[in-house]
């Protein structure tokens, strides 16, 4: 469903993402794990067509993100780190607007919007202004806008950041409900989130992939924390060795 091949992003001299490759299978949840600043957001922005890659390719649902960007964007739902909300709109009018933008046919607009509202448990707040919603509800509206056009692929950038524990549990439940029919890529630096939600884990450190495997393989002999720390320290040591040579 998603095939990333030697994808690289440079900002001037700085390499944000260095030649990463991984695949995400249809209907699975892929956890994109890494410390802050590792290049998770940059990768997601390249997958969703917000940023062009400096080199390398990525294919989403068979379409290339650089050359067939429009086809990719039609099939992807994206929740950036800060949910992209217009505070002056109501939940209902906002979701209608997003559905129109994403190319939902006019006849299905209301149905698509209502389905997203119901799915994300927003029925009670559907008429409220986005500015007046709590952070948890804002995050739900963010998820609702990502799936209002029924995309095949969902890209979620740190979907539970800044929420209280109850809201985190709710959002995780919603995401779990979405998996199965869709391919989900989810970035996070919270390890338990990965163990609860993801089928596959990709660990990224300073722009490089240091580990890619199914979660069950990784956690067979050690806890995810150990795997994560081991991968990161091994990578950092390797880099230092490289630098001294």
């Amino acid at each position, binding site marked *: 469903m998603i095939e990333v091949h030697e994808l690289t992003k440079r900002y001037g001299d700085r390499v944000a993402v260095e030649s990463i490759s991984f695949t995400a299978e249809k209907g699975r949840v892929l956890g994109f794990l890494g410390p802050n600043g590792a290049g998770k957001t940059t990768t997601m922005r390249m997958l969703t067509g*917000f940023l*062009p890659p400096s080199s390398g390719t990525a294919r989403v649902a068979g379409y290339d993100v650089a050359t067939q960007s429009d086809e990719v*964007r039609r099939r992807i739902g994206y929740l950036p780190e800060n949910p*992209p909300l217009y505070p002056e709109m109501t939940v209902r009018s906002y979701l209608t*607007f997003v559905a129109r*933008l994403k190319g939902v046919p006019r006849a299905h607009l209301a149905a698509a919007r209502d389905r997203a509202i119901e799915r994300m448990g927003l029925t009670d707040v559907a008429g409220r202004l986005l500015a007046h919603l709590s952070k948890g509800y804002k995050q739900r509206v963010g998820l609702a806008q990502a799936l209002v056009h029924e995309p095949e692929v969902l890209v979620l950038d740190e979907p539970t950041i800044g929420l209280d524990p109850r809201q985190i549990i709710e959002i995780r439940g919603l995401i779990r409900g979405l998996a199965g029919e869709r391919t989900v890529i989810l970035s996070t630096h919270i390890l338990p989130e990965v163990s609860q939600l993801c089928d596959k884990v990709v660990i990224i450190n300073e722009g490089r992939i240091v580990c890619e495997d199914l979660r069950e393989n990784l956690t067979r002999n050690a806890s995810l924390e150990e795997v994560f720390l081991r991968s990161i320290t091994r990578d950092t040591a390797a880099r230092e060795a490289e630098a001294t040579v």
Partner: protein
Amino acid sequence: MRNVFAIAGREFRSIFTSPIAYVVLTGFLLLGGWFFFNLVARFNLLVSLYSSFQQMGDASAQLNLNEMVLAPLFQNLAVVLVILVPMITMRSFAEEKRTGTYELLLTSPVGTGQIVVGKFLGAAGFIAIMVALTSIYGLILAAYGNPEIGVMAAGYLGLLLLAITFVAVGLFASSLTENQIIAAVTGLVMLLLLFVIAWPADSLPETPGAILRYLAVTEHFGQMVTGIIDTKSLIYFASMIVGGMFLTQRSVESVRWR
């Protein structure tokens, strides 16, 4: 086209839900009313002065509403628009970049050209309403005096074209930054430059002087206010609007180059 209207509609409504729109609208009409009142009062004074000098014959016939009230009114409103249009357009891109909704727009299956045209139509719609509201002054003059209607219509057209050109420039300024204040100041400076760019024209050789004069918005607007609709001016306004939108589109697209 559907996407363009979706974006234009949202932009238009969002302008109306922000308090800036009402402050700008009120300020514009307040100043407009003040200009109008003073111009009419001065005109009135001149009429009574002229008619009191019997020996001058019917000198008051030389007084003309178009020249003495409407033309200076339009000129003053144009200066006010230089300041107020950037206040309306400063949000359009800058705010979206700051709040992150920019990412939603740019990851939707919508071309950057469509985004720019949509935003332009939304803001231009608001500005057109603002200009349309000043037609009350023309209506008052037509009801109580006898202005030349054709000349007046040309003046309003000029004011509208000027305002819409300003919107295109303001949008460009807004697309350059995520800071609304920088967007407003940049827009204001660019518009002021368009106003004064012809100043050195008289002391320059003929060709560069003519080019500067052609570039100045005042040149074309000034003609329209006196009732002359020259194709050259219409082409000027059209090319400024299209040029402004083109630059905006390039600037939006430039995220993809870096």
